[in-house]
């Protein structure tokens, strides 16, 4: 089922490639068919079988597992190296798969008017879509890495070819930054495969079989002793690298890799550039799903494989999260471009994810995962909203707009929802996720000792600053008289209210944001299942 979900775009991409480039509108219908098909599959197939499996079997494992031998190499005296094609999801992954399926549908609909070479655009988009699903389903580190790298390629071209004025700079910056993270990950991955053995295969072959299977990597006894580790290897508990504990070094390297993706301050500067230059739908995917890979990896891989290092570094991770929250919010406040403001607000909101994880509390980590989901929805909506204005007048400067409420009342209403949802008003889903994160962070000192209480208290400054930049922006753009500024008044003809396609995007998003705000357990109950 998961393979089918992931590789569903492949035949559609083939069909697209065979079609003439000028087949008007056909490419987008095909792409829409692919993503809607995936959404249906997630809702009807994956979630249903997830549910039945969780009812009838031991809930503490992965669901919908597919495992096949893939690459097996004999390395002589060193042993064997096995790479499996190994997929499976638990609740956390399911939540993110659902998010991906949802956001991609919105992204395709908002790509409807791509004029320039739609065939290449939608093919690249589907490639991106494929790799995103793959990342969340992979259980083999090698496979994960492959999908992780695969995201890079289409993203690079989508920003670099369909982006704004400084697209090349932004695309290259995005590429190099992420590549740096990937290099670190590659390093750790190879070390891990050298340090861990597949117990079943080792017995079958009668020699040590090195594996990339993550499930073998995080298998521990109740006393915290790794089961499948090669004693004395780099990433065993005693292993060292350059005189340091190898596991700690590996954790830091992986953390940097994922912190770039999240992105956390100070490795965040690719994000505003990438967002500002990327076309609207790509910004939606970037903020809605791509950033989530960072948070996912941090929990699944950093915390999963190196739990004791996570405990060791939780204070620092909490600090990085706190700095991201406040720094991101303050810099967002200074932005003149609406899209850059939303981009920095992403930095700020993803800081809560780090804070929640660092709390090491159940509710904090659940909150972090839920925050990934809620931020995915809300940031998608925010970027779509920016796109509505940009489509009409090709301008995003906050100072150039005034009194839009009287000009575009329906649009203003949805902006109001998105802004207040993002600043954490109760009733919208971000409130619940941030509340959970704060609860975890605040109680952490009393229970797990992940982060001190002052961090939670200082981070609440983020919700105040968030309100400051959103309200200031709203007042400046939507309040006041429309004809107050010459610039905006001259756009009177162009600034029409929402059209049907935009309704189709904003209405479902608004409904989802409210739905999960009122009934968060719909998602949160899933998170804890499995693994």
């Amino acid at each position: 089922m998961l393979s089918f979900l992931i590789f569903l775009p492949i035949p559609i991409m083939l069909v697209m490639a065979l079609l003439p480039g000028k087949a008007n509108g056909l490419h987008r219908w095909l792409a829409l068919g692919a993503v809607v098909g995936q959404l249906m599959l997630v809702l009807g197939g994956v979630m249903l079988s997830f549910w039945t499996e969780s009812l009838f079997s031991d809930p503490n494992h992965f669901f919908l597992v597919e495992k096949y031998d893939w690459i097996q190499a004999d390395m002589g005296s060193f042993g064997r190296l096995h790479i499996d094609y190994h997929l499976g999801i638990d609740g956390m992954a399911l939540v993110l798969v659902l998010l991906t399926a949802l956001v991609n549908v919105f992204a395709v609909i908002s790509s409807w008017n791509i004029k320039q070479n739609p065939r290449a655009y939608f093919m690249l988009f589907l490639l991106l879509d494929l790799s995103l699903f793959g990342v969340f389903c992979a259980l083999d580190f090698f496979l994960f890495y492959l999908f992780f790298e695969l995201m890079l390629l289409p993203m690079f071209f989508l920003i670099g070819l369909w982006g704004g004025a400084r697209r090349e700079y932004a695309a290259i910056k995005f590429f190099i930054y992420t590549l740096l993270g990937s290099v670190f990950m590659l390093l750790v991955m190879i070390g891990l495969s050298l340090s861990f053995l597949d117990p079943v295969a080792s017995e079958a072959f009668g020699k040590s079989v090195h594996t990339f299977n993550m499930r073998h990597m995080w298998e521990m006894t109740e006393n915290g002793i790794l089961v499948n580790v090669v004693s004395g290897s780099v990433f065993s508990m005693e292993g060292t690298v350059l005189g340091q504990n190898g596991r700690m070094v590996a954790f830091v390297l992986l953390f940097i890799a994922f912190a770039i993706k999240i992105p956390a301050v100070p490795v965040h500067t690719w994000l505003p550039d990438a967002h500002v230059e990327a076309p609207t739908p790509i910004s939606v995917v970037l903020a809605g799903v791509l950033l989530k890979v960072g948070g996912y990896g941090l929990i699944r891989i950093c915390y999963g494989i190196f739990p004791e290092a996570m405990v060791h570094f939780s204070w620092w991770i909490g600090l990085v999260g706190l700095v991201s929250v406040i720094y991101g919010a303050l810099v967002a406040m200074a932005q003149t471009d609406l899209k850059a403001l939303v981009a920095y607000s992403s930095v700020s909101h993803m800081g809560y994810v780090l804070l929640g994880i660092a709390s090491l509390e159940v509710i904090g980590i659940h909150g972090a995962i839920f925050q990934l989901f809620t931020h995915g929805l809300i940031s998608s909506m925010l970027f779509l909203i920016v796109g509505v204005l940009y489509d009409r007048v090709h301008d995003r400067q906050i100072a150039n707009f005034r009194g839009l409420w009287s000009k575009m009342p329906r649009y203003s209403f949805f902006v109001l929802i998105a802004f207040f949802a993002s600043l954490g008003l109760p009733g919208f889903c971000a409130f619940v996720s941030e509340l959970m994160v704060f609860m975890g962070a605040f109680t952490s000192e009393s229970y797990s000792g992940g982060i001190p209480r002052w961090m939670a208290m200082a981070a609440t400054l983020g919700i105040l600053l968030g309100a400051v930049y959103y309200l200031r922006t709203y007042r400046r753009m939507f309040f006041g008289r429309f004809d107050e500024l010459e610039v905006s008044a001259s756009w009177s003809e162009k600034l029409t209210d929402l059209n049907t396609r935009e309704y189709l995007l904003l209405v479902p998003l608004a409904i989802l944001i409210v739905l999960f705000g009122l009934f968060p357990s719909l998602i949160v109950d899933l998170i804890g299942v499995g693994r």
Partner: protein
Amino acid sequence: MPLIIGLLPFLLLGVIAVVGKNFADKGGKLAIGGLALGVMLSSYQFTLLGEQALIWETSWLEVGEINLTVGWQVDTLTGLMCVLIYGISLLVFVFSLAYMKGDPYLVRYWMYLCLFVGAMLGIVLSNNLLQVFVFWELVGFSSYLLIGFWFEKDAPARASQQAFLVNRVGDIGFLLGIFATWLLFGELNISELGSAKASFDRMSEAWLPACGVLLFLGCIGKSAQFPLQLWLPDAMEGPTPVSSLIHAATMVAAGVYLLARISVIMTTEVLTVVAVVGTLTAFMAAIAATVQWDIKRVLAYSTISQLGYMVMGIGVGAYEMALFHLFTHAFFKCALFLAAGAVIHQLHAAGHEADPQDLRNMGGLRQSMSRTFACYLPPALALAGLPLLSGFLSKDGILLGAVDWAEANGGMLAWLVPMAGFITAGLTAYYVGRHAWLIFGGKLRTPAWAGKISDAPIIMLGPIFILAVFSLWLPWSWNPLDGSSGWFIELIGLSEPAHSDNHWWVGGVSVLLSLGGIAWASLRFRQAAQKFDAPQNGFRQLAFTHFFQKEMYQYAFVKPVLWVKEILAWFDRRIVDGVVNGIAFITVNKHWPYSSLSLVAARFDAVVIDGVVNGIAKSAASMGRRLRHMQSGYLQAYLGIAIFVLLIIMLIFNLFLPNP
């Protein structure tokens, strides 16, 4: 039942949003009908209430061992609050029908008001603090929308933003207080807090008072107490019925209501802080109210001052009296605001020659608006605290509580609280007298309006009249001089009614002070003609700006934040990103000697890697064309670095191999 009562306004909101625009009044009568139903339902619910509170809850979010619930709790106080909220909202809605007639955004107006009513009911019905917080913020949101209702003007837009932000400061304190309560008491249910005992396994003992202060911070924000009271006077930029309902009668009282609910977990020190903050607020705002020229700002400062009384009442332990004052104040202040609204509305209709909100332009309206004057007088005197009116009963009770508290605590400092309370009573009477004389007394000071002013229509006067009736003593207590024997205290009274020996002299002094205040105002403003351009002395300036509070905050918080954000944005662009770009520059700059390695790599790259890239690119024809437009030299160089880094890493990788 409580569910229907709580959800009814949200239902109305939905209905009006869908069908409201089809009506001439944009759904106003629909809303009024719904609220009338609400009044009936909540009154019926009230009659059902017995000794035992109605409590219901269900799980909302379960994570690990934490189970957050939603539910309601209806006891006598809640039941009364529901009736009060529905009742006053109904009157204000009826008033709005005339006041807001013809506004282009009328549908929105009804929707926002319904949202407010629903959120306010949510606060009183909720049985756990977290749920209170949810509605607490929603009330703030509806207040934001309504203050900024006339969004095309700059002042309301700014005022709404300020109100939301200042409230959020308080809300954050409240939220942290909730977390602390949860850790200390292991309980968030309001009904259980009374019996919960603090344990200090999870938090140190110092957190117990801190928790109280943090929770109080929420109340400080919402009920406009020192030091967060600055938003309320500016909130008067909203439509007057809104000021009346939200910023005088109900929402701002939410803080006091909550404080009364949670005062059980507050330590003595915290209650002292509460009392002092309340007293300070009451005193400062009363001084500011004496010099304002805007008809609504006088009332706004007066509201702050009266809320200060209530908070002081809770701080000194006169908790029933504080709630009593909450109820009486809701009626007489609402009436005063609506009367002020009627005046503004009629003056606005008389012509645009002068500002219809400036007291200096009014005068002599008792002749042309005699019925409005008749409805204005009882609530005004109730605010001044004269006997035979409701305000006297409750304010007297709070002052008495303060005196008893000071007596019990001993010490000269403790007496400052009741002392300031008494002075405030005198000041209150003074500014009420000034307000009344400037509007209704003397002669009209704007000649252009002469003869054009008519009395308010009956649809406006009706609600004011009903509210004015509730400003008399009779609806509250048979005894016009003693509130503690009234039905209200009997109903909600949890402790034994205090029979203090101080009662008679406290009442006497406050009556004397009130009379004195009114007399002084009468002397000063009886003959007030056009002589208001009196030199602005220091005190007047200080009082008019409410002790320069806004200016101080501007310099202490707003400016620094605006400054820091610019610095950080610069830092982000130049330093953080500068380092990144710098590294890129150094490694790809052809003249930099150390970058030769990258050049070598780049050569290799230009042949092999670029060939592959171009190969891919060719498959999508135009993509390749565009690629050539890209600064491919840089791309190669960057890829060169990447390969270089990889080489180094592969060297390091050798270190990882276990020794054979």
